[in-house]
């Protein structure tokens, strides 16, 4: 029974759904990382609360600062007394057992990144220039809080090109220290990252650290995962027959010739040649290009050519509909067109 594509599609969709639901499961079985506390910025901005009202040190210090419990209670002391107010809208939901706020860490950068809010505030850079959309953020999606390097470099490139060098923000640049996203399974993931975009900003631009030949050097020496032992013996023939273009990513014809010129296929075992001629069962035709024999045996004189099809045969006709199992061919008649043209 052949594998059904619909079943595969269903399985992959199920996997997708399972992974997507993991995000919900995480709220009940959180990982060891920082706990997320969605915060509704919009609910505050529409009531006239400004950025600096809560983040008091944004224009004074490197860090913008997060409000303390006491600070929040300046307003919420009375607001939270409302018994009808949902608990998720009260300050208490953000506090741990000791009464310390547990704010999310979406914007926390790596410790090797140096960033000063004051330096940007002094240059009249608006909060929303980096935290775009934060005024409308309700906490469901951290839209305005996720900081990506390309948003930094795009602005620096336009307004402060002298400050766009790596060392402006990165305190530890070391060719032996990869970026944070070069973590586990990077071999599997880097392809998607490199394709993510190398637009006008420099983020996700591999050339920042790697010269072009680094790609070649690695891809020429590390085969894809599906290049198993079976692949090397048989599988590549099947795959190349379906889509040879994929092979061309790494291999040129001289690579094929080097091996095929000197290596006999596994099928050429005892009895392949005369007198048993077991090769007949694989082809029973002249060594025409339509068969795998032609990979190595080119133009080898063979058996008599098959008679052509009658002129009234429709090219798309099913041979089996008329020529049933009573064929005298050693094959099952599926590949009649290979010889009967």
């Amino acid at each position, binding site marked *: 029974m*052949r*594998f059904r594509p619909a079943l*595969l*599609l269903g399985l*992959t969709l199920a*996997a*997708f759904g399972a*992974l*997507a639901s993991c*995000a919900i499961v*995480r709220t009940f079985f959180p990982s060891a990382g920082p706990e997320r506390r969605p915060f509704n910025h919009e609910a505050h901005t529409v009531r006239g609360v400004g950025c600096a009202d809560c983040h008091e040190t944004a224009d004074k210090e490197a860090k913008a600062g997060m409000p303390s419990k006491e600070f929040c209670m300046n307003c919420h002391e009375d607001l939270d007394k409302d018994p009808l107010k949902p608990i998720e809208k009260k300050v208490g939901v953000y506090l741990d057992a000791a009464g310390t706020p547990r704010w999310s860490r979406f914007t926390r950068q790596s410790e090797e990144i140096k960033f000063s809010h004051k330096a940007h505030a002094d240059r009249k850079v608006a909060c929303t220039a980096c935290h775009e959309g934060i005024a409308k953020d309700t906490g469901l*999606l951290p839209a305005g809080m996720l900081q*990506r390097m*390309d948003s930094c470099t795009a602005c620096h490139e336009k307004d402060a090109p002298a400050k766009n060098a790596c*060392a402006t923000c990165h305190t530890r*640049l*070391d*060719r*032996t220290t990869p970026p944070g996203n070069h973590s*586990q*399974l990077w071999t*599997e*993931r880097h392809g*998607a990252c490199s*394709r993510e*975009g190398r*637009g006008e900003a420099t983020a996700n631009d591999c050339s920042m650290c790697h010269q*072009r030949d680094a790609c*070649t*050097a690695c891809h020429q*020496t590390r085969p894809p995962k*599906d290049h*198993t*032992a*079976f692949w090397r013996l*048989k*599988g590549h023939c099947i795959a*190349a*027959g379906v889509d*040879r*273009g994929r092979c*061309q990513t790494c291999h*040129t*014809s*001289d690579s*094929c*010739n*080097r*091996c*095929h010129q000197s290596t*006999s*296929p596994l099928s*050429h075992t005892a009895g392949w040649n005369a007198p048993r001629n077991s090769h007949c*069962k694989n*082809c029973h035709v002249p060594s025409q290009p*339509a*068969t795998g024999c032609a990979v190595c045996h080119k133009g080898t004189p063979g058996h008599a050519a098959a008679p052509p099809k009658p002129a009234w045969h429709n*090219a798309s006709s099913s041979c089996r509909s008329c020529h049933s199992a009573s064929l005298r061919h*050693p094959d*099952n008649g599926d590949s009649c067109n290979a010889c009967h043209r």
Partner: protein
Amino acid sequence: MSLLLVLLLAQDPQAVPPVRAEEPKSKWMESLHGTLAAKYRARWTGRDSDSDLYEYLTLSWGDPEKDAVSACASLRFSEDLDGQTDTSGYYVFGSRDDTYQHDATSHLYTAYVDMNLGFRLRGGRQTLEGIPEAVPMDGGLAQVDLHERISVAVFGGVPVNLFESSPANDLMYGGWVEATPWSRGRLRLEYLHLEDENVFGAFEDDLLGVSAEQGAGPYRLSGRYTWLEDTSRDVTGRLTAGFARWGFLLEAQATYLFERQQALSYAIDPYSLFLIDLEPYVQASLRASQSLGGGFFVESSATVRELVKKEEEGVYNREFVRWNVTPRADGWPVSGVSFALSGDYWRSTADDFWTVGGDVSWALHPAIEAGAGTSYALYSLDLFTGEERERVRLVYTSLRLRLAEGSFIDARFSFEENDVDRFRMLEVGVRRAF
């Protein structure tokens, strides 16, 4: 080479200068960087075995964007330790390296020097890209900016066919003109002349290509049209859309091959020398990737190919549909764990094959990373003798130890069971970045 590797590993890691310093000139003029790796591989079945040693060296000197002179090299050494070189087909570990007379082989992938003198000169072994095909060459390239928006390049040399015995009577030359007339726009005209004499005969090919690219916001549209001799060869269009805010990327590509591709020079031959001529086809693919938040990520793609002439479908010219999906997760269920699933299904006339697999990696310690994975592949073949199924099951486990900054030891053991035999493989390697 192995002694050099030991010496490098024995040294304390040195601080290296920034990738891009703020000074006008980088300090790379005084520093040599690269990686040196060695890997031992042992493979065995119930009756056959094989032992090989591989060494890889990549070097870079200077910054081609800042320094007047810079250089780059990449090479590989290999040695068959047990001397098994049976290529008769009965030895399951026979390989391309066994076709040489010596147990030790080497491949030089790149070795060139860049000179930035107001115009750029590059000499040595290099890979030229987009001319219109990527072709490795031993030769020289000269590129000059006629205008801030127009550049011209010419090149000439010998095409590199790593597995060809002799480059005699091989030649390549050509050039390109590139213009960036407006923001995020690019126009390019490329020409490549190839002469290749190999065991199949003498080939002479002229390839001309014109390409255009335009970006607008999150979108980028590109296209390329090529001619082989005086006949249209193919046209390719590609559209990418990246929405970083939502972690979504979409790629769509379509290709139309106009004419049957017969045997060509090695560098651009579509395996017509082995898989018969490549028949005209239309192919479209769509790839999408989405970040789901919380460290979850999924990527999927679909590719469809149809032949222009259905009657030309044969063993090596197929119509097919390919589906692929890869969900991944980082930091779940515990921090330091990453896992990825993959599913790949190829469906063509008569033959199907699909592969599913999973990989997991766990950072047990800042210096220790463990991994494991498995895959299962099923090839359903409709050969002349009837339907045949080939099954491949593979499991592996791996371990990485960080000795120091930029130094690693990697070990991997895999077990593969297929319809040919049961294969076991052990790989142990060391790697040092300097």
